């Protein structure tokens, strides 16, 4: 380390104050990192179960739509699909987790009722009903999983950044400052010894 610092008492006082501030910042960042990590782990376990549910629901929906297309015909399924005048929509807003801005996904018309689907009940097909229900459920789960995944991604990025900052403070900034403090202290002591020695020499003359 190139110690480009003035070995003065005021600099030492400044440095001591900065070390104190940096250490408290370091502690805060460490707490933030741990907090984020705790949040991440909680969300991760929720995300894993949401993913598993999503895969299961997707499998069921695929089976239901395959059966509906096979029995009622792909044309009938498409014909039923175009009837709905309401379409699923999602809106993305922001929320804050420990200072991290994460997306909040809200869905509208994700689960359509029979009335919303617009199809007549009399000539309808149970296969198409079941496929539509399965896909409604799937869309809900996709939206939920998308929100959780995006949140996890943002949290992970923030944890990485915080970890880098903590490491930088712990292994670079604070040690360098302490080294500088030691250097100044040593230099000041040396200057004091030099001064004492010079005074003794003057006395002897």
């Amino acid at each position, binding site marked *: 380390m190139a110690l480009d610092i003035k070995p003065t008492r005021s600099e030492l006082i400044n440095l001591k104050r900065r070390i104190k501030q940096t250490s408290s910042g370091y502690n805060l960042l460490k707490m933030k990192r741990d907090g984020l990590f705790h949040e991440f782990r909680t969300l991760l376990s929720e995300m894993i179960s949401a993913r598993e549910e999503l895969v299961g629901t997707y499998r069921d929906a*695929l*089976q*239901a*739509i*395959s*059966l509906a*297309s*096979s*029995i009622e*015909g*792909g*044309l*009938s399924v*498409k*014909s*039923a699909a*175009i*009837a*709905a*005048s309401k379409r699923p929509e999602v809106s993305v807003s922001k929320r804050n987790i420990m200072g991290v801005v994460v997306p909040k996904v809200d869905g509208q018309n994700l689960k359509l*009722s*029979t*009335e919303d689907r*617009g*199809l*007549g*009940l*009399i*000539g*309808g097909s*149970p*296969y198409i*009903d*079941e496929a539509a229900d399965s896909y409604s459920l799937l869309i809900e789960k996709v939206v939920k999983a998308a929100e959780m995944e995006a949140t996890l991604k943002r949290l992970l990025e923030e944890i990485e950044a915080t970890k880098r900052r903590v490491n930088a403070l712990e292994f670079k900034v604070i040690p360098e400052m302490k080294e500088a403090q030691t250097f100044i202290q040593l230099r000041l002591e040396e200057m004091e010894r030099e001064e004492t020695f010079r005074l003794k020499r003057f006395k002897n003359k």
Partner: protein
Amino acid sequence: MSNVSYGRSNVYNASARAKARKASLIDSTRMRQLLQQGPDSIGASIGELGYRTEMDMYASRMSGADAVEAALFHNMDNDIHQVMSFCHGHLRSLVAIYVERFDYEKAKTVLRAINGGASDEMIEDQILPPENTRNSPWLAIVRSTEGLQEAVDAMSGTPWGRTLSKLEGDLTLEEMENALDMQYFSDAIKAVKSGKGEPRLLRYLRMEIDHRNIINQLRAIRLETSQEKRSSIVIPGGRIDNSVMKQACLATNDSDLLEALGRSSSFDATGFEEAMSKSSSQGTLDPYAELLSHQRHSLLKKFSHLSPISPFPVIHYIECKALEIRNLRLLVRGKAAGLPDDVIEAHMDY
């Protein structure tokens, strides 16, 4: 449909021709052989079984199961047209009762497309392909109309158009579809009753109405539809008494529904217990739908043999052709979607 013709019928000739056509349909053995084939080769095999012309028409712009399905529908439209062309007089009117259901379905598709704001291109590409000239009038309605009322006006002169124009107020698509379905069955019953007396055809139609009502009530239970709405979707004219159907509308689960239906002597409860347990374990209405479908087909088959000189052989042929189309579609779509062979076979009806 309600204007039943009393002109001279050619029942002998038409029945013989229908039976000859039925004999050339794909039999259960060949169908099972197709089931053993992979998804790649099944299309080619279907082509060799009489669907080559239509498949070639769609091969240039569609692929896979979509092309095969469009070809199957096209072939069926052609076939129905040919059958209708050799039926005359009163027979033609009676066969038309069965055949018109396909037109009602197309009318509903057009209304759905207009209500949902689907583009003309999407309808042409995926639902009513222009290669099938019988779709032209329907496509013309889709292209030339903007709202549901305009579509209803464009359908004037047809039985479904007349039904829709009778409706008053600002109607939703659901109400229109329900009205069309009600009208279809009402017209069909009226037409059969007003004819020379076709008790078996009447019985078949009434059974179909009962089955529709039963499956709709089962669906309504799952959809948690209000009792008022459930009563409104009961199609009148079935063999099960209205009072029993009213009781059935109050049922909150399958068991109560079957118990209520069991009070009618016309309700055939055979197989329902098994279907109910399968349905509750699988969480689907599939077992009921399959049971009712098998019951209808076996009755139609029985009537076709009991009344060899009647509209039944012709209607039975059309039903068998529709079944063949359904089975082939099931094979193609099922294989493409990766459904297990046993699931596909369980849903096939011969």
